[in-house]
């Protein structure tokens, strides 16, 4: 019956299009979705989940449950990158350890929405405030990463670092995706029912189709990087699969303790398990140029993302389901 879930998940058009995208690269069909179309899709997805979450929030209101979940989200966002760093340090230099830890401490919006579609296909609800949780979880890992860096890296070029600190914090908190999520969430919240009526046709009715389109592209992008997995090495490949599972379990455990609802716990576990391949890499490129991008990008995009949306989701749900029944 875990197997049923696997099928259940795989037979959604979005997942199938993701697989089709990967396959197209292996078959060398030259199928490509040129920029800025992927940019269009990601802007669309961010606005959609923002507005939708805000709308849901305007209906549910901000309850103590909401506060609990947001608190847990924050807690995970600060904790995950810390222990990830020390695990990574076993094999890597400080710079790469920091960059990868930050990558896994943050989240992937596409994984989140794919999980949402998966829950919907099982007719299970989750709170709109989970979008707020996601937004909260995007930036902390970057800040933690940079703090760690300043603690452990013997910073010779100290002052040049200093100068950019403020810059980097801004970059962390106001990177495009965090910002767009925040404003959409806010707009969805205050325009509530009235605004939703106007936005729903574009930003919700078409959502699944756009997701399928986007995942087709994600499949292509991910597969193009698969070649680099060799260079990544077994240790990091393992990290890219087992760290997410562990993070998800931790989230589920916390959800259980603070008795969070089933759907919310699942989404929280997905957030904990997902790794960032947009916001964090951009920030790391800027602030930790010494780290090798083809490590952290490849891991997040070509290992963890595909694993999560194909095997991860059913697995995490299976466990949530065992406990919440």
């Amino acid at each position, binding site marked *: 019956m875990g197997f049923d879930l696997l099928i259940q998940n795989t037979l959604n058009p979005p997942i199938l299009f993701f697989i089709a995208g990967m396959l197209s690269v292996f078959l060398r069909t030259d199928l490509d979705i040129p*920029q800025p179309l992927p940019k269009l899709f990601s802007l669309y997805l961010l606005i959609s989940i923002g507005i939708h979450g805000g709308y849901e929030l305007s209906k549910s209101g901000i309850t103590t449950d909401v506060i609990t979940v947001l608190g847990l989200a924050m807690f995970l966002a600060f904790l995950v990158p810390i222990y990830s760093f020390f695990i990574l340090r076993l094999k890597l230099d400080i710079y790469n350890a920091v960059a990868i830890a930050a990558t896994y401490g943050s989240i992937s919006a596409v994984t989140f929405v794919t999980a949402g579609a998966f829950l919907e296909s099982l007719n299970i609800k989750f709170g709109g405030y989970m979008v707020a949780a996601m937004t909260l979880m995007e930036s902390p890992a970057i800040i933690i990463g940079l703090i760690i860096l300043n603690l452990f890296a013997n910073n010779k070029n100290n002052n040049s670092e200093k100068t950019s600190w403020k810059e980097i914090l801004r970059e962390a908190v106001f990177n495009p995706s965090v910002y767009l999520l925040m404003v959409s969430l806010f707009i969805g919240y205050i325009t509530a029912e009235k605004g939703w009526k106007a936005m729903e046709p574009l930003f919700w009715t078409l959502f699944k189709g756009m997701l399928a389109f986007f995942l087709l592209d994600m499949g292509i992008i991910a597969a*193009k990087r698969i070649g680099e997995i060799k260079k990544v090495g077994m240790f990091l490949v393992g990290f890219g699969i087992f760290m997410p599972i562990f993070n998800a379990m931790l989230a589920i455990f916390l959800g259980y303790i603070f008795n969070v609802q089933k759907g919310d716990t699942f989404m929280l576990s997905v957030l904990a398990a997902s790794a960032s*391949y947009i916001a964090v890499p*951009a920030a790391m490129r800027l602030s930790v*140029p010494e780290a090798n991008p083809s490590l952290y990008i490849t891991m997040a995009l070509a290992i963890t993302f595909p694993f999560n949306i194909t095997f991860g989701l059913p697995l995490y749900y299976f466990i949530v389901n065992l406990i919440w029944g």
Partner: protein
Amino acid sequence: MEARKKIEVVIDSYHLGKVTEVFEKNGISGYTIIKDVIGKGERGLMSADELTDAFKNSYIFTVCNEEKALKILEQLRPILKKYGGVCLLSDVMWLIH
């Protein structure tokens, strides 16, 4: 026509600003940028088709007199050392209008 020097730089789009800064500081009359160029170098492939802009190069060139050019090159060196990229200098004739 007057003899001038052409400075060409290829650097990731993120740090392009640092190059234009140097240009402005040295009061060049203008520059031209081509965004999102693809490249391969020590830092690997910059395919410009990633979801993040951090893997795009930009190409920028400016034309100015020799002495200015040499000043600029000295100030560009540390930037290229830190972030990678290439910087080229060549001779051109500038059409006065």
